[in-house]
């Protein structure tokens, strides 16, 4: 016992290395790149793309140095520094700070790596685009904002990053805004996430009102000491979770993410798969003690997660657009992370975030490669691409297997850890947990794992197997696109070993969400069950889709298929219940106001202006012109008289001068 305590104390005092102490450089670099690309990008030989790639590379190098140097193996230091940015109120200030711990370090690596891969990939994918330079500027801005969100030491700074990534998401979804559909998708994404941001903002204020500080470390300390009432914490946690629901596309605000696929595919890989959408998960993990203190809040998180993962996996089964399959899959996997957080398995959630970033970015970039080749998003225009695009095929299959949870690929380890933790929460129970919630999460997780394997199997068979159904001439993508695919595929194979069960210094001890470093041991029956459902899902998909059916076999589900096609009518419901009443009502009201109030005001103003103008004309002619002319004439006459004073005779000037001196001398002696 004493020995473990000593070891723990020793581990905590590990001093921070140079990169960790200077980790603020990591977000600053992409921000700098953004300004350079904005101002000089068009004049640079490659439209500024090399600036973005270079800074992403340096930032990635630093992130690796931070993670490997200080956090791999656990017991890394917590480095917190901040600058006083500007004060408001009496004793309140907005700090610009950094808080570096294992969680931050892992997020750094994920964000910078995916950003780097996507930027390299985009040099080919976006080649010759109308707004190529602007695209790279926005990518750099996004990377910087996301890193700022991750590094933030106080909630307001986190909020700034949070909103900036929202803006970047909006800008990049609507990158090809000339098409109405794309700009609609951008607006939908923006407004839907903002719906979640309102409770998020209120939640920050609730926490601030209770803790009198925005600093995350200080807040979590107060929470751990029990200084904040249970009710306040529950309210704050659920309000903050509202923001996470919006950003991480959880039910009921998940509707924006599939539409966000209107953006360029690399953007989907970066923003809508690997980084921005995980911000919600990151947020909950970052202030995990606040959630942990409230059983109700955690149950809400777990149940929302369990529901969303099932719903999104069902929707992913019936999509024809390959990107939409992946989008719903992302929603589903994010829900996995949320559910894991809900059953006190923060480390498992972040582990899944880590592995998911690699294989989902890989899948999106692979999908981009497909779209690049066949000029269509629809799987009904693909098929038989295996022989045309061997690299894309191989990497896409690796990504799919990783997502489906086939050992030893990355997704298996993280997904299995979540399922194990959920099962444990259900049976043994954890402190402050509700067992039934654990079971619900486990059940939903197992079903989702089956569905995930099924829809990925379907996607692979529809795109790569059978005969080619499209019209374009498919070809393998150029090296700038295939290289990131290969790198990400390699990472998808090995990333899972970071958190292999039983390794006490594994991933869980690096991030230590909520101070939890305990590493769960795996249970063999559970592993066999999850492998079983994954393989089962793949085989069912193979059986249904390998013969290359003319019509989707799922259509035989009849009514249920139609419900899925209509996305559970959620979009229709929002359209009918919210968008139409608000938009139409507002537009009708605005029309009335326009006709009666504004037109009245305008006409009145015009009439008034006319009358005033007439009056002013008279005044202008007589008074103002008179004054102007009078001033002119007066000056001229005055000048005519006064010019005789300027005789040019120096001696007369001197005489005036002496006369003046005499006058003043007289005045001073008399009256001074």
């Amino acid at each position, binding site marked *: 016992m004493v020995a473990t305590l000593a070891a723990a104390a020793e581990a905590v005092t590990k001093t921070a290395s140079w990169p960790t102490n200077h980790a603020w450089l990591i977000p600053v670099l992409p921000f700098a790149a953004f300004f350079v690309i904005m101002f000089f990008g068009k004049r640079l030989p490659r439209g500024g793309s090399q600036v973005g790639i270079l800074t992403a590379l340096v930032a990635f190098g630093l992130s690796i140095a931070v993670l490997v140097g200080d956090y791999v193996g656990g017991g890394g230091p917590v480095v917190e520094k901040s600058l006083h940015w500007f004060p408001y109120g009496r004793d309140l200030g907005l700090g610009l700070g950094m808080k570096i711990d294992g969680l931050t370090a892992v997020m750094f690596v994920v964000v910078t790596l995916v950003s780097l891969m996507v930027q390299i990939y985009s040099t080919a994918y976006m080649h010759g685009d109308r707004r190529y330079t602007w695209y790279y500027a926005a990518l750099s801005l996004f990377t910087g904002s996301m890193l700022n969100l991750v590094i933030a030491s106080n909630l307001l700074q986190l909020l700034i990053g949070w909103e900036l990534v929202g803006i970047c998401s909006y800008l990049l979804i609507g990158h090809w805004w000339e098409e109405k559909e794309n700009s609609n998708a951008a607006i939908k994404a923006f407004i839907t996430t903002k719906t979640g941001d309102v409770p998020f903002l209120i939640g920050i204020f609730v926490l601030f009102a209770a803790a009198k500080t925005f600093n995350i470390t200080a807040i979590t300390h107060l929470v751990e000491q029990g200084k904040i009432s249970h009710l306040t914490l529950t309210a704050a946690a659920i309000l903050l979770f509202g923001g996470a629901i919006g950003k991480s596309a959880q039910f009921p605000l998940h509707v924006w993410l599939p539409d966000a696929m209107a953006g360029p595919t690399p953007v989907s890989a970066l923003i809508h798969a690997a980084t921005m959408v995980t911000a919600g998960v990151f947020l909950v993990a970052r202030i995990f003690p606040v959630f942990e203190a409230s059983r109700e809040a955690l149950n809400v998180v777990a149940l929302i997660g369990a529901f969303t993962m099932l719903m999104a996996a069902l929707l992913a089964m019936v999509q024809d657009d390959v990107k939409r399959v992946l989008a719903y899959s992302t929603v589903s996997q994010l829900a996995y992370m949320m559910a894991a957080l809900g059953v006190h398995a923060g480390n498992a959630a972040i582990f899944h975030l880590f592995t998911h970033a690699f294989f989902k970015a890989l899948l999106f970039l692979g999908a981009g490669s497909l779209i690049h080749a066949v000029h269509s998003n629809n799987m009904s225009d693909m098929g038989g691409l295996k022989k045309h695009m061997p690299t894309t095929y191989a990497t896409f299959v690796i990504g799919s297997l990783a997502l489906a949870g086939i050992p030893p690929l990355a997704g298996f380890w993280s997904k299995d850890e979540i399922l194990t933790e959920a099962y444990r929460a259900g049976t043994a129970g954890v402190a402050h947990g509700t067992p039934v919630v654990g079971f619900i999460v486990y059940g939903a997780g197992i079903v989702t794992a089956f569905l995930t394997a099924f829809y990925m199997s379907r996607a692979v068979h529809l795109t790569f197997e059978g005969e080619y159904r499209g019209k374009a001439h498919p070809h393998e993508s150029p090296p700038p696109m295939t290289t990131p695919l290969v790198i990400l595929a390699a990472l998808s194979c090995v990333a899972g070993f970071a958190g292999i069960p039983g390794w006490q210094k594994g991933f869980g001890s690096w991030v230590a969400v909520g101070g939890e470093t305990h590493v769960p041991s795996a249970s063999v029956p559970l592993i066999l069950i999850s492998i079983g459902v994954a393989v089962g899902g793949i085989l069912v998909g193979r059986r249904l889709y390998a013969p290359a059916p003319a019509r989707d076999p799922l259509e035989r589900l009849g009514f249920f298929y139609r419900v899925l096609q209509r996305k559970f009518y959620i979009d229709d419901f929002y359209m009918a219940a919210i968008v139409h009443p608000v938009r139409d009502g507002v537009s009708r009201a605005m029309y009335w106001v326009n006709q009666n109030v504004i037109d009245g005001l305008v006409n009145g103003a015009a009439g008034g202006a006319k009358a005033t103008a007439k009056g002013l004309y008279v005044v202008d002619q007589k008074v103002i012109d008179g004054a102007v002319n009078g001033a002119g004439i007066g000056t001229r006459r005055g000048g005519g008289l006064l010019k005789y004073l300027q005789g040019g005779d120096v*001696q007369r000037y001197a*005489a005036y001068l002496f006369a003046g001196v005499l006058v003043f001398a007289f005045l001073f002696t008399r009256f001074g």
Partner: protein
Amino acid sequence: MLTLGALLFSIGIYGVLARRNAVLVLMSIELMLNAVNINLIAFGAWFQDKAAVGQIFALFVIAVAAAEVGIGLAIVLMIFRNRETINLDEVDLLKW
């Protein structure tokens, strides 16, 4: 002493206002400056000025006067070269 200073100053004023010759006007200005110097010294003696402020100021005035005469004579020289005269009544270029 003060009477001498006043006398010199009056002669200087007369010279500046009445003489036509620019060089003589300059000399008259010198007279006035020296009258001021005499006054400064005189007042210094009168108030038993321990810090010798009057004398120091007189030295300053002498230095300024030297500079002033240098510039003044240079101007007069240039006027003569350009207009072949140094009669101030004829130098009225700054007339309206």
